[in-house]
């Protein structure tokens, strides 16, 4: 074999290896059959070009490009969104993506690898279209939260330092209140064990039962009728004054019947 042939074979072999390597890294894929979606974010939480895209936890694509676009506004809501992330999604998972699908930026693995998680939408909603722009869910800003909680903790400490005297007083008062309440509860418990008190409670219970029975009876039609008759009688007796009643009571027949 000629040296030129051997060198040529080496080059071809090297080229084949490079293609295989690029394919393994996902830089080159001639068999790719993926759809593209544009996601709009205001904060991307560290996602990078090449980060995986997952649907229900399964890798179905990757982040193709990240573009800064300060002038961009969402076509439907008019919201200003400054970051456009282009992702690819394999054809096999495309039908799972619907108009109400949500796009989250998540963290996975020991090294905290960032990935884009897509929640599948409901089947009654329409499928997404190729190249559609969708608003993604901005991930929570942990750094901002920490900074805010740090500021809040500072304010609380400041407030405690300023009002230390009154706070101590309040705490002491609360302490006394709790002690008194505890004493009252203990006294109540002690009292409830006294036989006299038990008797009183039982009697009260009987009185309450009787009262309930009486009030129940008062609601019956007979009682209502009786009450109406009494009312009528009182109204009829109303015009009568003292001398007339006296005269009436002093009549012989009445007197005899009463006494």
């Amino acid at each position: 074999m000629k040296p030129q042939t051997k060198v040529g074979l080496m080059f071809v072999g090297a080229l084949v290896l490079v293609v295989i390597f690029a394919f393994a890294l996902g830089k080159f894929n001639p068999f790719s059959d993926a759809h593209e979606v544009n996601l709009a974010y205001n904060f991307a939480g560290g996602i990078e070009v090449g980060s995986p895209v997952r649907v229900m936890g399964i890798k179905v694509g990757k982040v193709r490009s990240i573009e800064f676009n300060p002038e961009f506004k969402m076509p439907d809501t008019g919201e200003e969104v400054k970051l456009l992330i282009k992702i690819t999604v394999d054809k096999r998972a495309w039908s799972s993506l619907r108009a109400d699908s949500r796009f989250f930026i998540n963290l996975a693995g020991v090294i905290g690898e960032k990935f884009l998680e897509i929640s599948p939408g409901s089947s009654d909603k329409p499928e997404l279209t190729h190249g559609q722009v969708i608003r993604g869910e901005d991930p929570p800003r942990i750094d901002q939260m920490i900074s805010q909680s740090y500021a809040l903790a500072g304010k609380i400490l400041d407030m405690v330092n300023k009002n230390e005297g009154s706070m101590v007083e309040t705490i002491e008062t609360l302490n006394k209140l709790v002690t008194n309440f505890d004493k009252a509860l203990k006294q109540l418990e002690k009292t409830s064990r006294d036989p006299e008190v038990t008797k009183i409670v039982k009697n009260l219970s009987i009185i309450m039962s009787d009262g309930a029975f009486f009030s129940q009876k008062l609601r019956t039609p007979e009682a209502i009728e009786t009450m109406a008759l009494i009312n009528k009688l009182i109204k009829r007796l109303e015009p009568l004054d003292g001398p007339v009643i006296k005269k009436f009571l002093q009549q012989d027949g009445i007197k005899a019947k009463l006494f």
Partner: protein
Amino acid sequence: MKDIFVQLEFVTWQSLPVILFCVCFAAVVTIIESSFHMKLVVQNDALVPGFAALLILRELGAVVSALLLTSRVGAGLAAEVGSMKITEQIEALKMLGIDPVRFLVVPRFVACVIGGFLLSLIANLVCLYCAMLVSEAKLSYSSGAFITSMRAFVTFQDLVFACLKGACFGAVIPLVSCYFGFRCKSGAEGVGLATTNSVVVSSVLIIVLDFVLTFLFSHFY
């Protein structure tokens, strides 16, 4: 041109078996040692494939193949040029009006630069493949898991830098070997000394150059 191809065949085709054989063993050692250390330090070897792949691409593949190339090609060049010097063939070339540097050094230099690039590329990728096989057999990582872990660390840029390193190391070998060959003292002892010196100096320069290139390339990450 034909001379370049002849030298290229000598540098690449003839060196390939020994380089591949050695880098495969280097891959085995890298994977096993990485796993051992990861388990020892962080009690978990989940990151070994990615870590080992990055180590192979950024250092091991290029340096091991360059050192092997030095011991094989560098020693051969120094001995060849040294022999020509003591048998006065170089003087004869000069008398014939042929520039010995142009005639001897240039084809070897071109062949070593291209050969270093090519061999570094092939050695790195074969080393990675070998590491994948070892991690599958020894650490029970499937090839898919190896590639996924590798993707978390490795970029295409790493391979490009490894090839550039290979080309730079390849350039060192003929320059040093021809330098010692042209300054070879008479007798078999002189040739032996030139060969030894060329291998030692080339190896040291490759290690130093590796540091310089790694430092330079680190600015691109």
